[in-house]
Protein backbone atom coordinates (compact mmCIF):
# COMPACT_ATOMS: atom_id res chain seq x y z
CA UNK A 1 0.00 0.00 0.00
CA UNK A 2 2.83 2.40 0.83
CA UNK A 3 4.35 1.70 -2.57
CA UNK A 4 1.04 2.66 -4.17
CA UNK A 5 0.98 5.90 -2.17
CA UNK A 6 4.55 6.61 -3.26
CA UNK A 7 3.55 6.00 -6.86
CA UNK A 8 0.70 8.50 -6.55
CA UNK A 9 3.05 11.05 -4.98
CA UNK A 10 5.37 10.52 -7.91
CA UNK A 11 2.61 11.26 -10.42
CA UNK A 12 1.77 14.40 -8.44
CA UNK A 13 5.40 15.43 -8.60
CA UNK A 14 5.52 14.85 -12.34
CA UNK A 15 2.45 16.98 -12.91
CA UNK A 16 4.19 19.89 -11.18
CA UNK A 17 5.96 20.33 -14.51
CA UNK A 18 2.64 21.48 -15.94
CA UNK A 19 2.40 24.25 -13.37
CA UNK A 20 5.83 25.51 -14.39
CA UNK A 21 5.44 25.14 -18.15
CA UNK A 22 1.83 26.25 -18.44
CA UNK A 23 1.26 27.68 -21.00
CA UNK A 24 -2.21 28.96 -20.05
CA UNK A 25 -3.61 29.86 -16.67
CA UNK A 26 -6.17 27.11 -17.06
CA UNK A 27 -3.30 24.60 -17.36
CA UNK A 28 -1.87 25.63 -14.02
CA UNK A 29 -5.27 25.47 -12.39
CA UNK A 30 -5.74 22.03 -13.87
CA UNK A 31 -2.69 20.95 -11.93
CA UNK A 32 -4.48 21.99 -8.72
CA UNK A 33 -7.44 19.86 -9.70
CA UNK A 34 -5.07 16.94 -10.23
CA UNK A 35 -3.39 17.58 -6.89
CA UNK A 36 -6.80 17.52 -5.28
CA UNK A 37 -7.82 14.21 -6.83
CA UNK A 38 -4.50 12.47 -6.17
CA UNK A 39 -4.30 13.96 -2.66
CA UNK A 40 -7.77 12.61 -1.95
CA UNK A 41 -6.69 9.14 -3.06
CA UNK A 42 -3.54 9.32 -0.90
CA UNK A 43 -5.56 10.41 2.15
CA UNK A 44 -8.06 7.59 1.66
CA UNK A 45 -5.23 5.07 1.47
CA UNK A 46 -3.60 6.53 4.59
CA UNK A 47 -6.94 6.38 6.38
CA UNK A 48 -7.17 2.66 5.65
CA UNK A 49 -3.50 1.95 6.32
CA UNK A 50 -3.33 3.53 9.75
CA UNK A 51 -6.95 3.05 10.76
CA UNK A 52 -7.61 6.80 11.00
CA UNK A 53 -11.19 7.36 9.80
CA UNK A 54 -10.78 11.12 10.34
CA UNK A 55 -8.54 11.25 7.28
CA UNK A 56 -11.57 10.37 5.15
CA UNK A 57 -13.12 13.60 6.39
CA UNK A 58 -9.94 15.40 5.39
CA UNK A 59 -10.23 13.85 1.92
CA UNK A 60 -13.82 15.08 1.75
CA UNK A 61 -12.72 18.60 2.67
CA UNK A 62 -9.94 18.60 0.09
CA UNK A 63 -12.34 17.45 -2.61
CA UNK A 64 -14.81 20.17 -1.63
CA UNK A 65 -12.27 22.96 -1.44
CA UNK A 66 -10.54 22.04 -4.68
CA UNK A 67 -13.95 22.56 -6.29
CA UNK A 68 -14.44 25.88 -4.48
CA UNK A 69 -10.99 27.11 -5.53
CA UNK A 70 -11.53 26.25 -9.19
CA UNK A 71 -14.91 27.97 -9.30
CA UNK A 72 -13.63 31.01 -7.41
CA UNK A 73 -10.64 31.33 -9.70
CA UNK A 74 -12.78 31.26 -12.81
CA UNK A 75 -14.81 34.14 -11.40
CA UNK A 76 -11.66 36.08 -10.45
CA UNK A 77 -10.06 35.61 -13.85
CA UNK A 78 -13.24 36.60 -15.67
CA UNK A 79 -13.45 39.71 -13.51
CA UNK A 80 -10.06 40.75 -14.85
CA UNK A 81 -11.23 40.59 -18.45
CA UNK A 82 -14.58 42.07 -17.49
CA UNK A 83 -13.35 45.58 -16.78
Amino acid sequence: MLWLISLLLLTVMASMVRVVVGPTRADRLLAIQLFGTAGTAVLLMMAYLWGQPALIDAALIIALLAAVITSALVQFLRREHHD
Partner: protein
Amino acid sequence: MIEFTAILAWPFLLAGAFFFIAGTLGVLRFPDIYSRLHAVTKADTLGLGLTVIGLGLLSGSLRTTLLMILVWLLVMASGATACQLLARYERERPQVEDENGGR
Protein backbone atom coordinates in the same frame (compact mmCIF):
# COMPACT_ATOMS: atom_id res chain seq x y z
CA MET B 1 -13.78 -14.78 3.14
CA ILE B 2 -11.65 -11.82 4.22
CA GLU B 3 -8.70 -13.13 2.25
CA PHE B 4 -10.90 -13.49 -0.78
CA THR B 5 -11.98 -9.85 -0.71
CA ALA B 6 -8.39 -8.81 -0.13
CA ILE B 7 -7.31 -10.67 -3.25
CA LEU B 8 -10.21 -9.12 -5.10
CA ALA B 9 -9.23 -5.65 -3.91
CA TRP B 10 -5.68 -5.50 -5.22
CA PRO B 11 -6.51 -5.55 -8.95
CA PHE B 12 -8.79 -2.56 -8.35
CA LEU B 13 -6.09 -0.68 -6.45
CA LEU B 14 -3.51 -1.38 -9.13
CA ALA B 15 -5.91 -0.39 -11.89
CA GLY B 16 -6.59 2.82 -9.96
CA ALA B 17 -2.88 3.61 -9.80
CA PHE B 18 -2.63 2.84 -13.52
CA PHE B 19 -5.30 5.43 -14.32
CA PHE B 20 -3.58 8.01 -12.14
CA ILE B 21 -0.37 7.44 -14.08
CA ALA B 22 -2.27 7.63 -17.34
CA GLY B 23 -3.86 10.91 -16.27
CA THR B 24 -0.50 12.42 -15.40
CA LEU B 25 1.02 11.24 -18.65
CA GLY B 26 -1.89 12.85 -20.46
CA VAL B 27 -1.34 16.13 -18.63
CA LEU B 28 2.32 16.09 -19.54
CA ARG B 29 2.07 14.89 -23.13
CA PHE B 30 -1.21 16.05 -24.66
CA PRO B 31 -0.84 18.94 -27.08
CA ASP B 32 -3.55 21.41 -26.04
CA ILE B 33 -5.48 22.52 -22.99
CA TYR B 34 -8.76 20.87 -23.95
CA SER B 35 -7.30 17.40 -24.26
CA ARG B 36 -5.34 17.94 -21.05
CA LEU B 37 -8.56 18.88 -19.27
CA HIS B 38 -9.95 15.64 -20.52
CA ALA B 39 -7.00 13.65 -19.17
CA VAL B 40 -7.17 15.01 -15.63
CA THR B 41 -10.87 15.08 -15.09
CA LYS B 42 -11.67 11.70 -16.57
CA ALA B 43 -8.69 9.43 -16.02
CA ASP B 44 -7.96 10.62 -12.49
CA THR B 45 -11.59 10.45 -11.44
CA LEU B 46 -11.78 6.90 -12.72
CA GLY B 47 -8.54 6.12 -10.90
CA LEU B 48 -10.01 7.46 -7.67
CA GLY B 49 -13.17 5.42 -8.21
CA LEU B 50 -11.22 2.19 -8.64
CA THR B 51 -9.12 3.04 -5.57
CA VAL B 52 -12.30 3.60 -3.57
CA ILE B 53 -13.68 0.23 -4.66
CA GLY B 54 -10.43 -1.47 -3.72
CA LEU B 55 -10.21 0.21 -0.32
CA GLY B 56 -13.88 -0.48 0.34
CA LEU B 57 -13.31 -4.18 -0.30
CA LEU B 58 -10.28 -4.15 1.98
CA SER B 59 -11.89 -2.26 4.85
CA GLY B 60 -15.12 -4.22 4.79
CA SER B 61 -16.90 -1.59 6.89
CA LEU B 62 -20.08 -0.18 5.42
CA ARG B 63 -19.79 3.28 6.96
CA THR B 64 -16.23 3.80 5.74
CA THR B 65 -17.13 2.59 2.28
CA LEU B 66 -20.15 4.88 2.06
CA LEU B 67 -18.07 7.88 3.14
CA MET B 68 -15.45 7.04 0.55
CA ILE B 69 -18.10 6.71 -2.14
CA LEU B 70 -19.35 10.14 -1.09
CA VAL B 71 -15.83 11.52 -1.59
CA TRP B 72 -15.72 9.92 -5.00
CA LEU B 73 -19.12 11.34 -6.03
CA LEU B 74 -17.96 14.78 -4.96
CA VAL B 75 -14.71 14.49 -6.91
CA MET B 76 -16.60 13.22 -9.92
CA ALA B 77 -19.04 16.13 -9.91
CA SER B 78 -16.24 18.57 -9.21
CA GLY B 79 -14.08 17.18 -12.01
CA ALA B 80 -16.87 17.35 -14.56
CA THR B 81 -17.81 20.88 -13.54
CA ALA B 82 -14.25 22.14 -13.38
CA CYS B 83 -13.60 20.71 -16.85
CA GLN B 84 -16.57 22.58 -18.31
CA LEU B 85 -15.77 25.82 -16.49
CA LEU B 86 -12.10 25.87 -17.45
CA ALA B 87 -12.83 24.94 -21.05
CA ARG B 88 -15.42 27.70 -21.37
CA TYR B 89 -13.10 30.20 -19.72
CA GLU B 90 -10.36 29.23 -22.15
CA ARG B 91 -12.66 29.58 -25.18
CA GLU B 92 -14.07 32.96 -24.21
CA ARG B 93 -10.82 34.47 -22.99
CA PRO B 94 -9.60 37.42 -25.06
CA GLN B 95 -6.74 35.87 -26.97
CA VAL B 96 -4.48 38.95 -27.02
CA GLU B 97 -2.72 38.33 -23.78
CA ASP B 98 -1.45 34.97 -24.95
CA GLU B 99 1.81 36.40 -26.18
CA ASN B 100 2.62 39.07 -23.64
CA GLY B 101 2.73 37.63 -20.20
CA GLY B 102 -0.88 37.44 -19.15
CA ARG B 103 -0.23 34.25 -17.33
